[in-house]
């Protein structure tokens, strides 16, 4: 019998390894798994089972968060293919993307100084969401074609999307500061 903890996140949820995940189906599976492994179901059990339940629930939570989010899911698929994201060593990015990023960042700095930043922030967040959606479509295409060229394109896309997510976080933080 193979230990559940040895499964990858897709296997844990009984899903095929693919970028295409139905969000509603995933949530349903998540809830069912929680109903069966959550520590509240083992409050009365032996230390051994309580420990296992804690580990398993943490794993289910982490797997759910990873599979739910397209960027993390994409990154995880690349992990499974043995692709190193190389964040610490490889800082080369597509120059066009970097330019775009710098522009967005400048916008954000300007908004920080603006008189009524709320509306502008929302617009900027919208812009980023839009770009994110485009990239999700591209990423789906790249990941579904399992060639080394496409894999390397997927890797770049994931890295760009991580940048966008970080920008989004900064916008959220600024919104919070302002309210």
């Amino acid at each position, binding site marked *: *019998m*193979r*230990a*559940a903890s040895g499964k990858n996140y897709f296997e*844990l*949820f*009984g899903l095929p390894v693919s970028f295409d995940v139905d969000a*509603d*189906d995933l949530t*349903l*599976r998540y*809830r*069912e*798994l*929680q*109903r*069966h*492994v*959550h*520590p*509240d*179901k083992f*409050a*009365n*059990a*032996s*230390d*051994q*089972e309580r420990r*296992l*339940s*804690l*580990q*398993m*629930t*943490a*794993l289910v*939570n*982490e797997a*759910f*968060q990873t599979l739910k989010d397209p960027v993390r899911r994409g990154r995880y698929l690349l992990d499974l293919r043995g692709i190193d994201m190389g964040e610490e060593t490889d800082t080369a990015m597509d120059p066009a993307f970097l330019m775009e990023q710098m522009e967005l960042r400048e916008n954000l700095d300007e908004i920080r100084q603006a008189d009524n930043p709320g509306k502008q922030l929302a617009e900027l967040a919208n812009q980023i969401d839009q770009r994110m959606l485009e990239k999700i479509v591209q990423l789906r295409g790249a990941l579904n074609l399992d060639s080394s060229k496409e894999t390397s394109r997927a890797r770049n896309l994931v890295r760009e999307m991580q940048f966008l997510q970080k920008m989004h976080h900064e916008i*959220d933080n600024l*919104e*919070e500061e302002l*309210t």
Partner: protein
Amino acid sequence: MALFQISEPGQSPAPHERRYAVGIDLGTTNSLVACLRNGVAETLPDESGRHLLPSVVHYRSNGKEPVVGYEAVAVAHEDPLNTIASVKRLMGRGIEDVRQLGKSLPYEFIRGDTAMLRLRTVVGERTPVEISAEILKKLKARASESLSAEITDAVITVPAYFDDAQRQATKDAARLAGLTVLRLLNEPTAAAIAYGLDKNPQGVYAVYDLGGGTFDISLLRLNRGIFEVIATAGDSALGGDDMDHAIAEWIMQQANIADDADHRQMRRLLRDARVAKEALTRSERVSLNIDCGKGNSWQGELSRDRLNALIDSLIDRTLSPSRRALRDAGVTTREVDGVVLVGGATRIPRVREKVAQFFGREPLADIDPDKVVALGAALQADILIGNKREEEMLLLDVIPLSLGIEIMGGMVEKIIRRNTTIPVSKSQNFTTFKDGQTALLIHVLQGERELVSDCRSLARFELRGIPPMTAGAARIRVTFQIDADGLLSVSAQEQTTGVASSVVVKPSYGLTDSEIERMLRESIMHASADDVVRKLREQQIDADRLMEAVRAALAADSALLEAKERSDIEDGLKKLEAMRNGEDAEAIKQAIKSLDQTTQTFAQRRMDENIRKALAGHKLEEFDAARDKTP
């Protein structure tokens, strides 16, 4: 009084016997204990029929036990330094935090060995943990008497916005009081259970909980008996107490009482302020007759309008966390299907008015806001102790504050973000920066800000036993785990050699295990009893718990075992049972350990089986969901 339920040797309690576990609301102002009896959750009264226990402890000289509750309240203004109220505000706090809380707390604080503060009393120094334990002991005794059984298992509620140190302090207090904590349950979540929101098919609910000293807002999504907390926010130092202070300050101004009023006078003023505040929930105005000391007095009047003006800014302070929770949850007030009010301070008409205005709907307040949390905790306790219910229910809660570690330049790197569903674990790789380095220090912080100095220090973890290597060669994988109580633990392993490092915890505001052990030995409750008897009893309780768990597992899933495996487990049970009926605590401990080892594979298979069942059952659910959608 039959306190202990002891079965005859060789007999375990009948399996169908209903077990009792209680829910405890350890509040800033009042505490309650509740239990499920005959299918109904009810709070348990004292011998005079009073349900609330004021969270006040009075320490007495000449070796008398401390008094707790109304008796302590009665002497508070005579002996303010030895009468501790609102101790919850001090849990998991350091002396600097208390300075920030201001002069409002009329006690003598002292700095201990750790940053955890201590209070000087007539019986010596006491930590907030020990003081809280006195309240819990009182509730435990009340429950044991009401239910004619020794009560050891409890669900204890904490504000959702409590940080790790405050949660740990609460759990330590329970341990000192001789209670096993089945779960630390967030107060708003407990209230949602009490309202039976699980019976609603689905929807998003907000729980607005303004207590004596803390404010919480939680947003929950309900779906087929699953309570999913989607965001929580709050202020763990804001509550009805602050309103009392605002009123007291106003009285001082009006009555020309100097700022340097002594402890006794301050206590009297706060009491008068509270009485006035409570009276104004029913009437439009209240007359005041204030003792100004030295035989002087002041007469005046406080109107509800004036009160509103005094407390409006405090109520407004609850709205910004409310906005944050909504934003984190990604819902607007319009998408909220209901609002539940919890906590004594939500009785104040102005609070209700503002909440209704904010959410654009009338809040629910049909359950007594003082009792609702304890009732919900009792329901959860009953489920956790293993009593079956008709409808299945499951709580999925979140961590209220982000968790991070200190990196270069006094900055914090977030490891686990706030509002992440718990339990959760995250790993991070570290390396050494010196040749042959064998130890590493990790500073864990909680909070949303970027600078270490703006976050709350939780603990310093020292990893020892790293195999000596050249600088940068070691790969130490550190795992941060948050359990279902919202409590953090840390483990570490060097990846290239697989050597586990030992983790030595220095809690910033907490107690070490040895300090708790010492307190247990010293505590009055145990001083009279023999330490050996206590240890034996603890092991016996653990043994009973394990044997019951293993027997239940065998009854349910013995098909997962081969004959030899099964007989090994049965042998282990027999050995433990024999030891349990002996007098040797250490031998019982060893037998527990041994049985726990023997059941390792079994536990793993049962967990795998659970996962298989979850996904098999999923098909049916899917079918149901599809059918629901069909008109």
